[in-house]
């Protein structure tokens, strides 16, 4: 076989492996049993202060307005449902949003940490996505890191006077990508590569998940913008209630 043939063959094989083996594009939940116990505990401990902060913020809200408990619960259910719905996709595969970027923009990062945590528990119990031992790692990537980056980008774009919708798109898009990067790093830390260590392993995980996660992030960004536009058109009063639109 000629050298050029070999290269072509390699490229084709890789392509088939990537596109053929990914019928489902889901938000990246690390499933049950994948992480060694040490990492389950470490990620749980790292998530704890964020969850505690979220918990106290929710406690404070509830102490002031007991009525807002139903709004919080609806918000949690909304994040769950959004993340479990099949979204339109180009390739005909079955993909899901993470929904946490939208949640962070609408409800604020602190309450999303607790709501995201509950949503992850339900995703494990009702959908068999993710798991109980990996709850800490998943919480950190999806309910803490992603939303914080989303809200950061959103605020940054507001400060820089970027077009609002561009800002929302970037917030959801980059939040999603960041979740995917954090998950890859989490996987790489647990399973470092024999030759190149953690960095090489992270690159491997980033590469194998890229074909599903990149289009997903773009679609998620677009859908988030569409949802916000529709909300602003029809539901200004509700948005004021949850604090998205400032009164005045």
């Amino acid at each position: 076989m000629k050298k050029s043939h070999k290269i072509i063959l390699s490229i084709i094989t890789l392509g088939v492996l990537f596109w053929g083996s990914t019928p489902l594009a889901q938000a990246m939940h690390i499933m049950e049993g994948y992480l060694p116990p040490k990492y389950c505990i470490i990620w749980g401990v790292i998530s704890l202060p964020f969850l505690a902060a979220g918990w106290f913020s929710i406690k404070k809200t509830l102490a002031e307005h007991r009525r807002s408990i139903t709004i919080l619960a609806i918000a949690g259910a909304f994040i769950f449902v959004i993340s479990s719905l099949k979204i339109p996709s180009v390739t005909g595969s079955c993909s899901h949003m993470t929904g946490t970027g939208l949640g962070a923009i609408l409800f604020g990062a602190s309450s999303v940490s607790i709501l995201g945590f509950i949503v992850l528990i339900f995703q494990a119990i009702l959908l068999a996505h993710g798991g109980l031992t990996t709850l800490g790692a998943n919480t950190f990537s999806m309910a803490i890191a992603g939303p914080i980056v989303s809200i950061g980008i959103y605020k940054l774009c507001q400060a820089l006077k970027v077009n609002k919708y561009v800002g929302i798109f970037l917030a959801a898009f980059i939040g999603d990508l960041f979740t995917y990067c954090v998950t890859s790093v989490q996987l790489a830390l647990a399973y470092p590569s024999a030759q190149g260590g953690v960095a090489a392993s992270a690159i491997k995980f980033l590469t194998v998940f890229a074909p599903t996660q990149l289009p997903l992030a773009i679609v998620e960004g677009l859908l988030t913008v569409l949802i916000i536009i529709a909300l602003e058109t029809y539901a200004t009063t509700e948005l004021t209630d949850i604090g998205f639109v400032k009164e005045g």
Partner: protein
Amino acid sequence: MEKWIVLSAMFLLTILVFVVKRRNGRRHGERAHEHRHSFGHKHGGLISIDYLAYSSKIRHWNPTFKVILSVLTIILCIALNNVYVSIVVILAMAYLVIKVGGLALHDYLSVLAIPLAFILISIFAIVIDFSDQPIGIYHLYLGFGYLYTTMAMLKYGVFLMLKVIAAISGLQLMILTTPSSEVISVMKKAHVPKDFIALMNMIYRYIFILLDVFAKMKNSAESRLGYRDFKTSCYTFGGVASNMLVLSLKKAGAYYDAMEARCYDGELMFLEEDKKVEIRLIVPAAVYVLCLLLLWYLTR
């Protein structure tokens, strides 16, 4: 012995892939029937796990017992990290849920196959490595370096896959035999904060309300050609999702009023069936856990 394990693992994997393909095939088949049954299976995966849990024959077992057994199994799986333990767990959990719990084998496998894509992709990343020298038993030249794999890495990957499937089986014991409301009541007994439990209970109930609303809106949008191409479906999805949020936020106040009218004072109380912990269950469970530990000790 290890060869046989790898072979049987491959066999299990083939079955799982087959189940997924059949499930997808059925979904496409039904699409051809102009969504005649679409209402029931729209979010099949979601409703069905709770539904299967309610119809399980071992639902009357004490939920605390089931949750502890299941969590203990998962912890043993990942802490012992032993392939024999994993195999025994896979078989034992399948026996409990399918034979004792009376669940159809096909349903059990299709729940097991949900995280399959993730398992395959991530195992793929672990068994393959790159290097600038052609080493290992298989390698593939990519222009800038070699992708290679070794027998030890392949074996490691298969064993890891078995461990993951075993842990998921342990989780399945819980989710396929215990309805979520009972899992929440177990968490309440474990002294999780009261407001957290209240939030979980409410979210659990609202999920089903929202899914119902979504199914109706999606049906009506679909009948107006709202999903005919990618661009339209994006707009429709955005519209439906935001409308769902608006409607539910509007209802949130009404839900609170309804609860208050029924004397809600910060705590939701539900009628719970009193399920006794039976000695005849605890003894076999203890024996099973001891067996796992013994097996691990012997094959260390």
